[in-house]
C-alpha cells in the first residue's frame, strides 16, 4: 500500500472527519438533543483544534467504521477501539489514551468468582468486542453467545439463559446500576486493553499529530479532566434509576420522532421511485411479449429483476453506499437509502405490475387493436386502468414490507425508527422497552395506512366493482 497523507487534504478542505459508533457511552453517545457527545468526541475536538480545522463527526454501525475509514470517506476513527493484529493490515494506531479491562457479570447468587469458574459455562458477549475474542480463544470455554448489544446479554443473564456475561469495565458499571439486587460484577480483571485512535495505514504525518495531542492532553491533565467530567456525570445519572429511565424516554422522544420521520420519508420516496421504475420495467417486458418490440430493454428488465430479487437488500445497501455512490464522491446516507430501497422495490413492483397486466384477458387487447387503436392507446386507456385494480392490493403489501425492510438503514448510520430505538437501548442498557415502543409505532403506521387505502379504494372503484 502506498503512503497516504491526509493532512494536506484536511488542511485544504478546512475540515477533518471523524467516524464513530455513537452507542458506547461515555465514549460516544447521542444526547437528548440528537448531538453526538463523549470522551472520544472531546479528544477529537482537540485534534481538530491542533490542526486548525473544523471537526466533522459521523456515526455508523460499529462494523462499518473501518469500511468508512478505508474508503476514505473519513480521516480517522475514534470509537473506543483497540489495536489488533487483523486491523493492523490496513490501519495504523495511535498511542493509547485509555486503558480498561474485561469483567465478568453474574447473577447475585452465582458461585462464579473468576475466569477459571467460567469453563463449560454459557457466556454472553457483545459481538466483535474484546470480550468476544477473549472468550472465543480461551481454552475450555464454550463458544460464547454473541449479542449485538450488551444489554441484551444481561437480560438473558437475568432470565437464567446465561451463566455469565463478559464486558468491559465501564459498560459493566452501567449495566449493573439499577439492577444491583439482581446482578454483580466479579473482582478479576480479565484483560488489559488500550483504546486507540485509528487512521489509514501509512498516514504517518497525521498519526504523528494525533500522538502529540494525546501526549499533551496527558501531560497537562486535560485528559483526566475529560474523563472525570463524563464519568461523574454518569454516576450522577444513576442515583435514582427509575426516575432517570422515565426521564430518558421523555428526553429521547425527539430522537424517536426524527427516526420516525426518516423511516416514513425513506419508505415513501422509495415507493415512488419503485413504482416508477417498476412500471417502466414491466412495460418493457409486456411490450416485447405483445409485439416483439424493445427486445433489448426487455432483457435488461429481466436481468434487473433477477439480480435484485436474488440478493439481500442489506448487501445492496452496502454496495450503493460504500461502492457505487462513494465512487462519485457522494456520501449522502438518505440518498443511498432511497436509491437502494427504490431500486430494490422497483424489482418487486415490476413483477407485480407485469402479472397485473398479464392477468388481463387477451380479448381486451384484441378488441382494442381490431378498432385500429395503436398499442399505446390500448395500454393507456384499456389495459392499465384494469391492471391497476389488480395491482393495488399487492402494491399495498409491498409498501408494508418496504416500511419494515427499511429498518436495516441503521447499518450505514442513518437514524430511522429502529436505529432510534437502538440508540435508546445503548443509553439505557434496557433491552425490552425501546424495542416494544418501536414495534408499536411500526404496527400503528401499518394499521393507519391499511385503513386509509381501503377508504381510497372504495372511492376510486365505486362504479365498476360488481
Amino acid at each position, binding site marked *: 500500500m502506498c503512503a497516504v497523507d491526509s493532512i494536506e487534504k484536511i488542511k485544504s478542505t478546512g475540515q477533518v472527519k471523524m467516524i464513530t459508533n455513537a452507542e458506547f457511552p461515555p465514549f460516544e453517545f447521542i444526547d437528548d438533543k440528537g448531538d453526538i457527545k463523549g470522551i472520544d468526541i472531546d479528544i477529537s475536538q482537540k485534534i481538530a483544534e491542533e490542526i486548525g480545522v473544523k471537526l466533522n463527526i459521523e456515526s455508523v454501525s460499529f462494523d462499518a467504521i473501518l469500511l468508512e475509514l478505508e474508503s476514505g470517506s473519513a480521516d480517522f476513527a475514534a470509537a473506543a477501539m483497540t489495536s489488533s493484529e487483523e486491523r493492523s493490515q490496513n490501519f495504523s494506531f495511535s498511542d493509547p489514551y485509555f486503558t480498561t479491562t474485561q469483567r465478568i457479570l453474574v447473577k447475585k447468587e452465582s458461585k462464579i468468582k473468576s475466569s477459571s469458574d467460567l469453563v463449560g459455562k454459557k457466556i454472553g458477549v457483545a459481538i466483535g468486542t474484546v470480550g468476544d475474542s477473549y472468550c472465543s480463544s480461551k481454552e475450555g470455554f464454550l463458544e460464547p453467545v454473541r449479542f449485538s448489544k450488551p444489554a441484551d446479554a444481561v437480560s438473558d443473564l437475568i432470565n437464567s439463559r446465561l451463566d455469565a456475561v463478559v464486558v468491559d469495565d465501564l459498560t459493566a458499571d452501567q449495566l449493573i446500576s439499577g439492577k444491583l439486587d439482581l446482578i454483580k460484577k466479579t473482582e478479576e480483571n480479565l484483560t488489559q486493553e488500550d483504546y486507540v485512535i485509528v487512521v489509514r495505514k501509512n498516514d504517518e504525518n497525521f498519526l504523528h499529530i494525533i500522538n502529540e495531542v494525546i501526549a499533551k492532553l496527558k501531560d497537562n491533565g486535560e485528559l483526566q479532566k475529560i474523563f472525570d467530567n463524563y464519568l461523574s456525570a454518569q454516576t450522577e445519572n444513576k442515583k435514582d434509576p427509575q426516575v432517570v429511565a422515565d426521564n430518558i424516554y421523555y428526553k429521547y422522544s425527539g430522537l424517536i420522532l426524527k427516526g420516525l420521520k426518516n423511516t416514513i420519508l425513506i419508505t415513501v420516496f422509495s415507493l415512488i421511485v419503485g413504482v416508477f421504475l417498476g412500471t417502466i420495467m414491466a412495460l418493457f417486458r409486456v411490450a416485447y411479449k405483445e409485439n416483439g418490440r424493445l427486445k433489448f430493454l426487455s432483457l435488461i428488465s429481466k436481468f434487473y429483476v433477477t439480480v435484485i430479487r436474488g440478493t439481500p437488500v442489506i448487501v445492496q445497501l452496502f454496495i450503493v453506499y460504500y461502492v457505487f455512490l462513494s465512487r462519485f464522491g457522494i456520501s449522502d446516507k438518505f440518498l443511498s437509502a432511497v436509491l437502494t430501497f427504490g431500486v430494490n422495490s422497483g424489482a418487486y413492483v415490476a413483477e407485480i405490475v407485469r402479472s397485473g397486466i398479464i392477468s388481463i*384477458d387477451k*380479448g*381486451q387487447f*384484441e*378488441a*382494442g*387493436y*381490431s*378498432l*385500429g*387503436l*395503436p398499442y399505446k*392507446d390500448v395500454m393507456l*386507456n*384499456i389495459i392499465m*386502468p*384494469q391492471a391497476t*385494480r389488480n395491482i393495488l392490493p399487492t402494491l399495498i403489501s409491498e409498501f408494508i414490507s418496504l416500511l419494515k425492510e427499511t429498518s436495516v438503514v441503521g447499518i450505514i448510520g442513518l437514524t430511522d425508527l429502529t436505529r432510534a430505538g437502538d440508540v435508546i437501548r445503548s443509553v439505557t442498557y434496557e433491552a425490552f422497552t425501546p424495542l416494544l415502543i418501536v414495534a408499536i409505532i411500526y404496527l400503528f403506521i401499518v394499521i393507519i395506512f391499511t385503513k386509509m387505502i381501503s377508504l381510497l379504494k372504495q372511492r376510486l372503484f365505486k*362504479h*365498476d366493482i*360488481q
Partner: protein
Amino acid sequence: MLATKDLIKDFKILNKKVRVISGITTQINQGERIAIIGPSGSGKSTFLRCLNGLEKATSGSVFFKGKNITSTRDCDINEIRRHLGMVFQHFNLFANLNVLQNITLAPTKLKTKDKDKIKKEAISLLKKMGLEDKARVYPSSLSGGQKQRVAIARALIMNPDVILFDEPTSALDPEMIKEVLLVIKELAKDGMTMLFVTHEMRFAQEVASRVMFFDNGKIIEDADPKEMFNAPQHPRVREFFSKF
C-alpha cells in the same frame, strides 16, 4: 375488396409446428355476405383473424382494396383495421368503460370526427340496438345478448367497409341468439359486406350470399347457399351435413 393469396398460418404448440391454414387463395367482393362453416379446428376463426392482422400470416398475402396488408413495410395495419370491424365470440367489451365510452373510445382517440358528433352517433347506434337506456351502465351488468349488441355498435361507429363476425352467437343462450342475429340481418339488409364464422346453419342459409366450407385449413367447397345446403359436391361436406 378483400383477397388472400396462398395464405398459410402455422402455430407452435408445445414446440410442435401445427399448420392451421394451409394455402388459401380467395377473393371477397363488396356487398358479399360470406358464411364460413365447417368442423371445429378447421381454421375458420384463424382465417378471419388473419384478415385483420390479429394473426400474422406465416406466408402468403392478404390484400385489402388491392393493398398488401401483410407486408409491414408499406402498410400501417392500425389504419387498415379501422375499415375492418370485428365482433368477437366473447364480446370483449372494455371492462373499465361504460357502454357509451366503449363505443366512443376508438373514434375519439383516433379523432375520426369531432367529439359531439361521435357522441350523437353513438347514441343513435344504441337506439338502433334498443339499448339507449344502457349508455351509462358498465359491461359487467349487461346480459350476453346486450353485450354483443354493444360490441356491434362499437364496430359500426368506425364506419367499416367490412365486418368480421367470429362466432358472434356461440357464447349466448338460445333466446339471446335471436336478438343478435336480428341485428346482423338488419345490417345485411343495409348492404354491409360481412364475413361470419357460424354454426347457425339456418341463419347462414337465410342471410349469406356465399358459403365457404372449411376443412383442415382449406376451403373445400365455396358455393352459393342454395347449392351448398341442397346439393353439396364434396363428400366431406355431405358427411358434415348428414349429422344435423
